[in-house]
């Protein structure tokens, strides 16, 4: 496993012509492939590009789109844009936090759900908006949220 990941890093680095300035898109591409950035991958990248590991670490902790933990099987993203806020987005986020038992930005212990917040998805006509597993659910209410979560849990139950 460690070997194949290392070669994945090298492949991406090569694709960017081993340019140091491309470290951010390289990290993004690796994350797109692996789902998240493991400590091993970050070390490997620092070696490949010949930059200090602390610099790689500073980047992945500065930019919000980098994930240093794996995501759950289902990702719920609650929009926190202004339009969503004035239509009650914060209440929806709290509802998801309570229902999933995790604060925003965390993954449940069983690896089932990750709850995320985003600053604005620009689909303000649908505010308040929640995206669950890539599907957008607009004009969200607590009751609708429960229905969405229920259907996901039911679908998961069937698969097993």
């Amino acid at each position: 496993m460690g070997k194949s990941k290392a070669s994945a890093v090298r492949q991406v680095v090569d694709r960017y012509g081993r340019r140091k300035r491309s470290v951010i898109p390289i990290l993004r591409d690796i994350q797109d492939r692996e789902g998240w950035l493991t400590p091993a991958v970050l070390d490997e990248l620092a070696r490949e590009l010949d930059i200090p590991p602390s610099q790689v670490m500073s980047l992945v902790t500065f930019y919000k789109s980098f994930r240093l933990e794996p995501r759950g099987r289902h990702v719920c993203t609650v929009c926190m844009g202004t339009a969503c806020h004035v239509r009650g987005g914060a209440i929806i986020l709290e509802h998801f936090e309570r229902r999933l038992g995790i604060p925003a930005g965390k993954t449940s212990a069983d690896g089932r759900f990750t709850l995320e917040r985003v600053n604005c998805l620009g689909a303000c006509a649908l505010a308040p908006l929640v995206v669950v597993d890539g599907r957008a659910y607009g004009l969200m209410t607590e009751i609708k949220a429960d229905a969405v979560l229920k259907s996901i849990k039911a679908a998961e139950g069937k698969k097993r």
Partner: protein
Amino acid sequence: MKQYRSHLLVCSGTGCASCGAFDLREALEKEIARRGLRDEILVVATGCNGFCERGPIVLVQPDGVFYQRLRVEDVPALVEEHLVKGRPVQRFLYVPPAEKKPVPRMADIEFFKHQRLVVLRNRGRIDPEKVEEYIAYDGYAGLAKALTSMTPDDIIAEVAASGLRGRGGAGFPTGLKWTFCRREQARPKYLVCNGDEGDPGAFMDRSVLEADPHAVLEGMIIGAKAVGAEKGFIYIRDEYPLAVRRMAIAVGQAGERGLLGNDILGTGFAFDVEIVRGAGAFVSGEETALIASIEGQRAFPRQRPPYPIQSGLWGKPTVINNVETWANVPSIIRRGAAWFSSLGTETSKGTKIFSLVGKISNTGLVEVPMGIRLRDIVYGIGGGIPGGRKFKAVQIGGPSGGCLPEEHLDLPVDYESLTRAGAMMGSGGMIVMDEDTCMVDVALYFLRFTQEESCGKCAPCRIGIRRMAGILARIVAGEGVPGDLERLEELASLVKRGSLCGLGQTAPNPVLTTLRYFRDEYLAHIVERACPALVCKNLVTYFIDPEKCVGCLLCVKNCPAGAISGEHKKAHVIDQAACFKCGTCFNVCPPKVRAVSKLTGERGRAAAAGRAGGDRP
């Protein structure tokens, strides 16, 4: 090119896509094939049409008929009635609020009638993934003119004469920026398109990138010729994958057709662009931070001067313009500065795109001539406030902007007027708020946003905003003390004057404008411990009136806290200690009954303490 008798333009912007536009398009294509109409009718997936409120949207051309809120089930009827029998389907047409008669033609709908499309001229009419369609609507004609019959100085003179100013918010004259960069001796020179649109509630740059990527590209190539740049970077926000994809397609097609590369249009001029995906940091919209981000560093702003036109990417002269600014350039070159400057006001020329969102009937993206009154946007185009609620404020300019109250509705929308009123043009987010919006809560919302997004480099921004947010958090919790407002103003002034970049310098604006126009609301929170808009949770109590409650159990069943007890046909009671004030009971109580009320201040406290009659005035 093949001729069709009718085109179905299916909006595939993010708003419509989120409510099923892709499924709709597939269903339309299937139905058209099934009925053997494939050679007669073409389905086109376009960029954002703008009227997001009514999605998914289909426009039938050449009839100009506008269909809205279509579902997959509606497709057979639509095809049968409109496309086979030739009569518009009444029930899918747009009906203005408070009216009964539908308006079939898009051009007659109020939302579209008052708009003036320059940047968005191709929205909803071309397939953004086909360069031929862009070219068919005069695309790259401006570039051809610039490269074959104009000198770089001519181009700059034309842009300067047009009066175009930066659409990213600050409003710096574009022609002047280009002139300064042209004078720089250092080589190479770079161009940057700033598409790191981070203001929550603003999505015009995304829409332009998605609906008409070639317009941005054409603007950049013209700009490159003018200032002598050989390489451009298009920086696109992380959350906009569709915009990245469309732009990548556009760059590829432009390269294939000799519109980018070593010998553009056979004139020997060389220019190339690279797309850079953002990695999720609001501050990278600041130009010096953007440069750092493209160079592969953390997006920390730095002191200016030197300005990027002197020392930008890798220390070389760099012109940074916003997406909307670049997209204005082709029309200016093609139609001339005189035409462009005939639109707008004395100091603000042309048009501006706004995203009209929040408590407004017609949510969507609108392009209007500069100088239009706010009232015409909110009521004329936006259709006013839904649900018969009262207008309270419009927030302009995102976290850097301000909230303007009703008395400013007749303000002309231009750079100077907005700044004088305490707001700013910003990128163009326009969030409408009604009487159910708490201005203190909104101010705190924006401060929490800027606090989280502050890069932390300079102390006034990093610490000052945090302190301000702390005071506001106490006020909304009902723990405000006299002197808080003065302290807020003092801190605001320090943060504004002491911060390094635009993020910190403008972050206090939402607080300052709400303090200026809605001071009473702050005082109500502090003195009466009341939230007049009934938003701030700590100051609101939900109460079930035992005389009105019919005992239907709806709230009991739906309460996520399980805080409501009661039996069928007996009045229900909220356990105030268990209630976390989500408002579900208030929302599910049938309109005919309306037994649940929200109370604040003294009455709220009386109800919470179980003192009977707490709800009666």
